[in-house]
Structures are given as C-alpha cells and as structure tokens.
C-alpha cells in the first residue's frame, strides 16, 4: 500500500513539480534576458535604427557587427570598447552636432582613432561596457572621462614640446614656470631656473621694514568686494608672481624684522658731484624731464604703470619687470641709483639690462621715480614697527625656512628645505583614492581636486602650507590642464617612444658679442636659434634680413617699424663700439642659406621692373592693405618706407616666395607670385628709401593712439 502510494503522484506533488519547473525555466531565462537588455546592445540596435533613417544606410552599416567592438593596441595598454556604442566615429557623413550621441563622427584630428584608441586622450575606462563605468568614476573604476575643455592635457602627456594646436596647455605650462611652482614642487618638464624669486641677501639696503610688512600681508594683490584683483590699488588682470601667504601678526613682525636686517653687502658708493646736483635741483622741470626720459627709453616695454582714464584705472606696459606705479614709496633712493647703474651688482641673475646712463639722465629719472611714482597712503595701515629686536629676528629666520620662503628666495647661508611641497611630476595620473579631500564637498575626482586646491588650498587640507593665488577662470583651467598632462614616466616602452621631447634652443655666443649680448640681455625679448623670449622679432636670421648699416643705426636709435606696437625696443644709449660689435656679429653669423645674396644681382633691376613692381604692389596685390609706404596703408605688416636701406634684396626675394619658410607662423600668407613678379616687387621695394630721421617724429605722433589701443 505504501509502495504503491509512493509511485502515485498526488495533486500536491504535481503542483510542486510544476512550480519548480517554471521557476527553473524562469531562472534559466534570466541570463539570456539580461544579456538581451544589456546597455551596449541597446545602443547597437539603436544605431541600426538610426542608420536606417539616413540616406547612406548601406555605407553606415557596412562593417556593423552585433557584438562588442574593441580597439586593442597591446604595446600602449589600450583595450578600448568605446566604439561598441560610438559606432559612427569614423563615418564622415555623421559629422556635426545635429547627429545624436553616441553616433556622431569624431572631429578630424591629427591622430587616427583606429590607430590610437580613445582612452589615450579622453581617459575613462576602455574595457568597460556600461555608460556609467566607462565615463564616470565608480568604486572599482577610478579614472573618469576627461571633460572636453581639459582635453589638451592629453596632448601634453606625450608632446612635451608645445604645439600650435594647444594654446591652453602652453599657457598653463607658462603659468607654472612664471609663478615659480617649481620652487616647492617637482614638475615634469619645468626646470628650475637660476633665480626664482629675487635674492634677498641685501634686501635691507633696498626697502624698509614697514614696506616688507605690508608686502607680506598683502603681496600687491587685494581682491576687493566685487572680486576684482587690485595691484597697489589699481585694477589689473596680471597676476603678481608673489602669492599671498596666510601669516599671523607675530609672523609678519618676525619676518619683516629678519628681512630688514639683511644687509650683507653695502651699496657701492656712487656720488655725483654735489655742485652739479645742486644746479640740476634748481630746475623746476626736473621730474617731468625725468618722466620724458623714462618714456623715451621705453621702460614701459618691461615695466607697467597704472593710468587712470575716464574713471577707469588700468596698468599699461609690459610684465617682464615689476610694476612701478608706487616704486618711489618702496625703494630707497640711494639703492635706486646703484640699481640702475649696475642691476647685476645687486641681483646676479636679473634680466634688467645695464643701460648706458649719463649722470644727468640717471639723476632725472631717479628723481621722477622717487617723487612722482609714490603714494603717501601706501604704508598707512602698517603699525609702528621700530627697530627689530633680536628674538624677532631669530623667529623670522626660522619662519623664512619653515614657511617656504627659502624655496624661491635665496639668502646667503640659508639653505631651503628639501622637497618642500609634494612631487607633482605624476599628479595627472592619480586616482581619486590617492587624494586627500578633507571636509570639502566637491566631486571625488582629480579635476575637481586640482581646481579646489588651486583656488583655495585650505579647502581640501586645513593645514596646507601652499599660499593663495588669484586665478582668472581661463588661467585656472590652463594650469589644471598643464598639471593633468603630467602623468609621470610612460608605463610601456611603446609609449616611451611616442614622447616628443621638448627642444631646448641652444645659443652660446662667444667673444666681444657675448659680452654686449649679456649686458643688454637681448635674449629677454628676442629669440636666437630657439633660445630666448617671444616679445620681439626672432633674430636667428637677422643677418640675412637686414643691412649692416641699418642694424648699427637701429641699435643706436631704435625706430618703429610697426606703428601699432605698444611695447618697443628700449633706448639703451648704446656706444658706437657696442652697436658695431652687435651689427658685425649679426651680419656675419645670424644667416640663413635660404636667402642667398650670391644668386641675386641687384644691378639687374631695371626701371621697367620698378614700375611693374609698383603697379603689382598697388593694384594687383594691393599690399597697402597691410603695409605702409609714405603716409598711407595698413599696419599689420612692417612699415616699408625705408625698405631699400633696411632689407637685403636676397631676403625680400626669398620672403616673397615663401614667408613661412623663413619665419614659421608668419602672418603674411604665401602667394602664387611668378618669378618675374617676385623680381619686380623686389626691385620696387629696394628703391624705397627715406632720409635721415623722419620716422622718429612719426613714431612719436602715433604713440598716443597705440597706448590708447592697449588700454581698450
């Protein structure tokens, strides 16, 4: 009975069996179902539906494949499945913002997407197959996609040399160097120069204790209640190099005491005859004549002054040297005279040239700075400090090292702390878990960390020693880009081979030229074989371009070739001998084979060619749209009034054939002149000669408008 009933299926058992089979089926169905609704498969099917709405469906679906697509480049650690969803990246017909993402074409860039993958530039997780895991930072996958406005950081990871296409990255690198970040941090590709901040060994001979106190408390920059940056009370966009340190009253007193006693080397005694000084001092126009000299020598090419026009105050002038609006209230007059005579005697590495001052000029300009560039209110907020006491000096000495002052400013016998700030040479590759966010409420990823730290170092770490900088939004992004580009040494040898090293221009002049070159610091503004500044024309081939006599005359009395320039070559008061040394070296050495005078015979120019050239210049090619001859014409290119005395015929010919070959990035486009046209234009330009010094007055006449232009 029992055995029988065992084989018999009771309805209850039947039901149990049915339920469990259905449950089993359902469980088995979960996996195929989950597979079917996977996120990437929806994008795959979406792409097919999308392609069917386009006229070129067949082409769009030619290499369609319903499974996961991936770009695999083993040597570069690239396993990118991004093209699984981003299926249109190489389809030219899917360009433009009208095409919905993720199907849009990748904009054309110098690198082929198929050869480089996606995460090399965009970061994010290549192997991930879900939108969130690929693009955002999750617990297991920590590298989020880089926002597009920081994308130039990825260019900089391999391209250590700046590219024309990455201006933001170049600006960021420039800021890192300019703001002396390498004083405290190790940075990839930013070397430590000979001098970061000024050497303070003798600072006590230059400024008073009260001024030091004021400077440390508010290093020029004050942000008013509207958020505007103020330099000594003047609004500016230039960020001063000295940042604001958060110093307590006692620390300010101690540091100012310590610095004001730094007088290791007394000022060299230089006395102008007292009787002569007395005679000059009677001149009521003294300061205004000094101002005129200050302007004539183009001090404003490197130094700026605040100018108020129509109730608006702006700084006008260059930023190579410090802003001088209130310099008279800052430095001691005897120091100023010693400095102007021999800047290197005070600061060995300063870029200030040694001008050939006459005593009278020196006296007048010093008087101008000491009496006119002043502000009686500058030190009103500074308490009475008195003579520095010994304990204050001792404390100041300790603080000078502990606060990191010594990392940028040298004082003889005070070595800086080693590795004062964290090493940032690999900061761009850090994961969020490696960063300290403190109590801040910012998103947990690298970009927001870097930006928060730069804007307010204490927001992520209350005990941060890093000083406070004031950034414009564009500069903040630029510095962020430069930092994100530093990912340390490449992880594979294939990536190592891709790195484009920074080319360091080398220029080592010797002999008499080197002496004069160093005295006038030509490389501060001009480039020689890739070495030097960007402010003024590249002189690597100046010997091929200009005639010797013109160079010598120009150095003695720099005239204006480009009427709109605000920043001009300073008047160095150069001696005939120095000018001749420079002109000889330039014409002999700074040559390019592309402008070959031996292939050109100036005597073959006929008057007919000159007439044709003039016609081509004025009618066919209308060169006057950019160049000025006589009183009329444009001012994009240089003034050609004196071209015949200035330029060499070989240079003019080579330039007309291909400007970019002689000067990469020249504004003048390369044109399709015939050889006969080039010859005629050269013949015409070589006949343009202006006499003695008519340009001098022209340059003075145009300077107010030029200055006005800069102020706009």
């Amino acid at each position, binding site marked *: 009975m029992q055995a029988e009933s065992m084989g018999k299926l009771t309805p209850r058992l039947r039901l149990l069996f049915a339920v469990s089979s259905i449950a089993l089926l359902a469980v088995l169905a979960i996996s195929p179902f989950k597979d079917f609704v996977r*996120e990437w498969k929806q994008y795959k099917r979406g792409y097919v539906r999308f392609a069917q709405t386009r006229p070129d469906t067949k082409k769009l679906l030619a290499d369609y494949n319903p499974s996961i697509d991936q770009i695999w480049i083993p040597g570069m650690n690239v396993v990118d499945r991004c093209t699984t969803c981003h299926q249109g990246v190489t389809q030219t017909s899917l360009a433009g913002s009208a095409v919905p993402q993720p199907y849009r074409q990748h904009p054309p860039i110098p690198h082929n997407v198929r050869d480089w993958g996606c995460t090399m530039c965009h970061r994010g997780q290549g192997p991930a197959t879900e939108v969130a895991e690929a693009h955002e930072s999750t617990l297991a996958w920590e590298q989020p996609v880089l926002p*597009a406005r920081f994308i130039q950081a990825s260019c900089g990871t391999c391209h250590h040399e700046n590219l024309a296409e990455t201006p933001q990255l170049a600006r960021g690198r420039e800021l890192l160097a300019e703001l002396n970040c390498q004083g405290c941090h190790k940075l990839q590709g930013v070397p430590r120069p000979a001098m970061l901040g000024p050497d303070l060994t003798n600072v006590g001979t230059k400024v008073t204790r009260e001024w030091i106190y004021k400077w440390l408390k508010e290093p020029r920059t004050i942000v008013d209640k509207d958020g505007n940056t103020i330099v000594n009370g003047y609004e500016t966009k230039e960020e001063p190099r000295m940042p604001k340190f958060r110093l307590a009253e006692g620390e300010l007193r101690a540091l100012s005491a310590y610095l004001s006693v730094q007088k290791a080397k007394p000022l060299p005694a230089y006395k102008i005859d007292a009787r002569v000084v007395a005679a000059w001092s009677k001149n009521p126009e003294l300061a205004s004549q000094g101002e005129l000299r200050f302007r004539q020598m183009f001090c404003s090419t490197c130094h700026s002054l605040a100018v108020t026009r129509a109730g608006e105050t702006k700084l006008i002038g260059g930023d190579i040297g410090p802003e001088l609006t209130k310099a008279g209230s800052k430095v001691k007059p005897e120091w100023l005279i010693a400095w102007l005579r021999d800047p290197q005697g005070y600061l060995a590495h300063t870029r200030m040239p040694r001008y050939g001052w006459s005593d009278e000029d020196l006296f007048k300009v010093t008087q101008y700075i000491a009496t006119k560039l002043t502000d009686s209110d500058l030190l009103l907020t500074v308490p009475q400090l008195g003579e520095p006491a010994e304990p204050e000096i001792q404390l100041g000495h300790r603080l000078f090292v502990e606060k990191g002052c010594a990392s940028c400013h040298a004082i003889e016998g005070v070595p800086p702390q080693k590795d004062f700030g964290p090493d940032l040479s690999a900061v761009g590759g850090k994961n969020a878990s490696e960063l300290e966010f403190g109590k801040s409420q910012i998103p947990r990823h690298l970009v927001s960390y870097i930006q928060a730290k730069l804007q307010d170092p204490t927001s992520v770490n209350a005990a941060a020693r890093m000083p406070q900088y004031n950034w414009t939004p564009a500069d903040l992004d630029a510095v962020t880009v430069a930092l994100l580009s530093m990912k340390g040494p490449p992880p594979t040898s294939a990536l190592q081979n891709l790195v484009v090293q920074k080319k360091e221009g080398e220029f080592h002049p010797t002999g008499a030229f080197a002496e004069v070159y160093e005295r006038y610091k030509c490389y501060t503004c001009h480039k020689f074989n890739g070495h030097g500044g960007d402010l003024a024309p590249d002189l690597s081939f100046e010997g091929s371009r200009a005639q010797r006599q013109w160079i010598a005359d120009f150095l003695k009395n720099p005239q204006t070739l480009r009427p709109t320039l605000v920043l001009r070559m300073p008047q160095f008061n150069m001696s005939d001998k120095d000018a001749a040394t420079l002109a000889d070296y330039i014409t002999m050495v700074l040559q390019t084979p592309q402008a070959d005078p031996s292939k050109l015979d100036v005597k073959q120019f006929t008057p007919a060619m000159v007439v044709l050239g003039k016609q081509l210049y004025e009618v066919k090619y209308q060169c006057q749209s950019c160049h000025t001859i006589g009183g009329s014409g444009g001012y994009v290119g240089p003034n050609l009034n004196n071209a015949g005395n200035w330029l060499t015929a070989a240079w003019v010919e080579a330039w007309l054939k291909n400007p970019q070959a002689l000067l990469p990035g020249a504004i003048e*486009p390369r044109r*399709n002149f015939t050889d006969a046209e080039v010859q005629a234009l050269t013949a015409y330009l070589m006949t343009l000669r202006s006499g003695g010094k008519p340009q001098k007055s022209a340059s003075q006449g145009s300077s107010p408008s030029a200055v006005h232009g800069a102020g706009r």
Partner: protein
Amino acid sequence: MKRRAFMSLFVLLATTGISGCRKQADARKADPLRSGYDVEADWTDGHAIPLTYREAQGKRIFYQQCVWCHADSTPAGPSNRSNLTPMPPLLNDGATLNAESDEYMQNIMTLGGSAMGKSAMMPPYGRALTPEEIRSVIAFTRAIAQPPYQPPGRPGSQYVNK
C-alpha cells in the same frame, strides 16, 4: 485555477523585477559650456559661446591670421580694418556672411578676394593654410555669427529658398 493565476503573477513579477534592476541611463544634461573645447565671448554682448573641437581650431587660426582685418580690436591693439576700402566684414557679421555658402567661404579664403570678384585686399590663404584649417575657420565663423547662423536643412534646400 487560483493557483495558476498566482503562478503566472509570480513569473511576471520575477521578470519585471530583473529588468527593474538595470541601471537607468543618466539623464543629466551636460552644461555645454563645461563640455565645450573652448569658449568665445560674443563680440557684441559678451555672452559665452561654447565651441566644438573644429570651431576651437578655427578660433586659434582666426586670432593668428584673420583678426587683424576682420575684427575691431586685436591682440596688438587697434585694428587694421578701418584702413581698408571697402571695409572688410567683421567675422561675426551674420547679416553679411550667413547668406554665403560654405563652398563660397572656402573659395574666397583659398583663392583670395580678386579670384572671387571681390577686393584684392583679401589675400589668398590656400598656400598658407590647409583645406581643413580653412574649414575650421568657417566653422568658427558660423559659431559666432550674430544673428545666429542657420545651416541649410538638407542639400538642395538652399537653392529652393532662393
């Protein structure tokens, strides 16, 4: 019968439950200014215009080559525009430039003004810039145009409209 209904309900719940587990696609709308490659301040009222990659390249080339005559203020101060007759259009002058097709713009930049029956003061850039660089300048022109540029709907419509 009741049980069967219960069972089917169970199966239904199980399947809907699974599909409910799927993460919802992120519906956050990205701010175009944060996701743009670059930003250009509008020349008249200064509002920020986000730029795509190609437009950003065009902006870079514009500020190197074209700004001197096609803008009223330049990085070097005053503009050369007022020295020229006829005065060249500002690059953001949509009233003039929106009517020109991309092909026309490409041609006048490549071949110069005289080749297109315009002022010879516009030099040819075909030997100084690549076709792609010129296309990016056109893209930048379109991006900053005031009044805004409306691309032709589809090939052919531009002829119908005229």
